[in-house]
């Protein structure tokens, strides 16, 4: 397991849940309060003297990563775990030898037990085909009923008019979403909830609601005809309604070797869920996106730096390109690329989007690598190419982009979404930068 190696300080910093935790950890990251510290290939452990009599027992599984501390903090990882990792990363930690501390050993054993039990449960489920088939049939019945209910709701919606829907309280939308969740259609539920706030937040709410209603309607139609869909088309629909694939199934399917180039990454936080999207391109030009999720207060997976080359194997989820993927081996950075490759113009990007919509009408976001585009100031900012075409920027740190590019033509990687570009990386003078 020694491929993990020692973390860099940046890696530790990125694991911090918030700035105050990190600041507190920095103060603790000195040898003073620590005792019984040590590390092996998988674990780092130590005891930290806090204000109480008994020192806190801190253990970190650096491979997972997972954190455990006997302190009452609800931050995750807590300042003690971060401080310990900082010490370890800096090589300033006194290493107590090969003997793993009891508390760390015990925790690792518990984790291993739990993991084994989970695996056992899963394999038991898989080994009983009859029960499995029954579960699937039950689920489909539930989903069919939910889709039929949703279709009726859409019919009612257009009969009474979108204007009157806008006068409904949020609880009305939330109620519809709740029924969809009960019917195991959480992806649809999420879209309906978002609409509950979008009808008030967006100036173009009428068009947005009309087109989205159309898309929902098309989804109900597609669902009822799912037997006629290709495997790829059905997989896209599954994602749209929120029927997750078991990751074990995906992992077993394939193992695509690297190196994978990180094109860009985006983190978002809607107050309940944190999400991280990492766009990658493989040696054969395959573009995939790795999604990570974490609940509030939990640590998201370590973000990857745009322009980094990763030695890692990937498995793709079923669906149309660019597919979702998952890492199937530990991520080992292998260095930085001096560019992202060739890009396209704005008109070409929109043509690509058009083709992608024809292929998979549920997809809302398309990765694009632009070449020779200028970032121009405005509200909020524009992307402009040599032929005078422009696209609006969204979620863009325009100040930062202008500072990095000086409004000179550059390469830019971003996500095309509703006709706007979310910039995730720029290439300036042979360096890939994250704005």
């Amino acid at each position, binding site marked *: 397991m020694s491929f993990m190696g020692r973390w860099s300080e940046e890696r530790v910093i990125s694991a911090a849940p918030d700035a105050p935790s990190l600041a507190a950890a920095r103060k603790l990251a000195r040898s003073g309060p620590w005792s019984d510290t040590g590390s092996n290939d998988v674990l780092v452990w130590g005891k930290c003297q806090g204000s109480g009599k008994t020192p806190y027992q801190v253990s970190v599984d650096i491979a997972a990563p997972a954190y455990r501390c006997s302190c009452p903090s609800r931050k995750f990882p807590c300042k003690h775990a971060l401080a310990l990792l900082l010490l370890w990363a800096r090589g300033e930690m006194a290493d107590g030898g090969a003997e793993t501390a009891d508390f760390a050993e015990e925790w690792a054993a518990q984790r291993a037990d739990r993991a084994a039990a989970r695996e056992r449960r899963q394999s038991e489920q898989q080994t009983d085909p009859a029960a499995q088939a029954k579960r699937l049939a039950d689920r489909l019945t539930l989903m069919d009923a939910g889709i039929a209910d949703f279709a009726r709701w859409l*019919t009612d919606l257009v009969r009474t008019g979108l204007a009157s829907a806008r006068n409904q309280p949020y609880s009305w939308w939330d109620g519809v979403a709740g029924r969809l969740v009960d019917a195991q259609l959480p992806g649809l539920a999420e879209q309906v909830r978002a609409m509950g706030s979008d009808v008030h937040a967006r100036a173009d709410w009428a068009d947005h609601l009309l087109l989205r*209603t159309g898309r929902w309607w098309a989804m109900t139609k597609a669902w009822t005809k799912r037997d006629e869909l290709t495997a790829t088309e059905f997989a896209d629909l599954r994602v749209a309604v929120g029927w997750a694939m078991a990751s074990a199934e995906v992992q077993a399917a394939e193992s695509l070797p690297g190196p994978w180039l990180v094109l860009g990454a985006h983190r978002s936080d809607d107050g309940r869920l944190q999400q991280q999207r990492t766009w990658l391109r493989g040696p054969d030009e395959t573009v995939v996106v790795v999604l990570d999720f974490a609940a509030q207060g939990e640590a998201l997976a370590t973000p990857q730096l745009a322009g980094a080359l990763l030695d890692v194997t990937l498995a793709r989820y079923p669906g149309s390109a660019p597919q979702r993927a998952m890492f199937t081996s530990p991520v080992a950075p292998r260095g930085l690329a001096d560019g992202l490759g060739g890009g396209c113009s704005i008109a070409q990007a929109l043509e690509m989007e058009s083709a992608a*919509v024809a292929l998979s009408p549920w997809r809302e976001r398309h990765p694009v690598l632009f070449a020779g585009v200028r970032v121009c100031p405005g509200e909020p900012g524009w992307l402009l190419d040599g032929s005078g075409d422009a696209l609006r920027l969204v979620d863009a740190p325009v100040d930062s982009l202008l500072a990095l590019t000086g409004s000179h033509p550059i390469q830019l990687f971003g996500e095309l979404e509703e006709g706007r570009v979310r910039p995730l990386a720029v290439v300036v003078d042979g360096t890939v930068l994250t704005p």
Partner: protein
Amino acid sequence: MTWLADLRSSALVGTGRHAVPAPAAELEFRPPDGLSREELLLDQAALADVVTRAARRPSMVDTAKLPDAAPPEDARPASADAVRLLDLLLNQPPVGPELRTQLVTDWLQFAAASGRRVPHRLIPGVLALAEAKPAVAEHVDPAIGTRGRWLQGLRQKGSGPKGPAPKGSGPHPATTIDWAELRTADATAELERLRHIDPAAARDRVHSHWDTLSARERAAHLAAFAINLELADEGLLEKALDDKAISVRDVAADLLDRLPGSARGNRMAARLKPLLRVKGLLRKQFEIDLPPDPDPAALRDGIAAAPRTGEPDRLGRLDTIIRGAPLGEWTTVADRSTAATLAMLDGEPRVIDTIIATAALRADAEWVRALLDIRTDAGLLGCLPAAEREQALLRHIRSGTAQPMALVPLLRDLPRPWGPPLANAVLELLTAKNGGQLATMLSGFLPMALPPDTADQCRRLLQRSDDDGPRRRVFRDVVQYQSFRQSLTEAFQ
């Protein structure tokens, strides 16, 4: 109306009350028969969704209105170490807000001195800090580099991200407008500006408009003469002593107090002289009489008339005379040096106070120095050149009579860093038994004021066991600041 607009109105009102349009002919889409109105609308909405997304067109912007790309840089970026330190200060400051502001300012100054610049990616962070902290804004240029100035230019034009305009771009006083037409406050502001660059022109302007000004305007405009006051102003000030309004006369008298060589100064000297007598054989002392009731000329010079009821304030009249007369009058009567003359006023604290105020007002160096030997006063210290001021304050602290709290403003105004003797004297005060409170009050500027050679001493003080938490924090700040500054020095070598 287009198909999409038709579809939108139908959907907004609802198919219950509005007909559903037929699909646009050019889409070549024919709905199947037997659909309900709702299904017909929903089918077309689905179609509209796909068509809209598959048929997006680029926007067009007026390129003529867009700013030019940034010109090339002429300075090299700072070293990797220096950049790392700036990044740390901006994004994960290891020190408190005041120290951070100071250290960023230091960074910018180091960069400017070594001809280096802020790397592009950190420019927005520096500009954002400069917007909140004027001290940073002052040193942003030239360290921000060509790219930074270009970005600032975009912000100013308002075509870029919103931000307040940089310093010095406030509305310029409208010199083209007739000065007499300005409102009083604006006219005074304009006059103050003029006094700074051309006192005579300001004087002429007030002089030529004097008779048309209201009493309030005369008083406000005359007060502006405090800037660059010169003996040539005397004529107008004498005229103002005859003014109808007491507010104008008071301003004139106060200003003439600062001109001991004026005719009023001589008149005051003539009033002071008969009041002073030297007595004592071995130990000479001044005996000071109180002034008589003022004659019309004295009243004109600003000496208070007798009130309608009660006793006149004769001590107040004496103060007025002392403030108006040249200080040389005292040495003349005593026939001694300034210091010896002051020694003869030992029992007269009120007179000393007035002399101190007068010497400070006139920045009379000889008297200021002599007075500082017997008394420490912020006003007096402010009149001294920096090096001398520090010496005076050091002597004062060493005398042991200093009120610790009174030292705070005096220390704050000293140029930094302090010399080692003063630094040591202050550290002694802080580490004394009750020094904690003083330490807290000095915390805002102590780290920047102590010279680098005191770093080791502060580190020792920090390690010393001390129950006084706030005092420990102050020393910790000092140590942090100095070690960070040391890193900056090395990074810019």
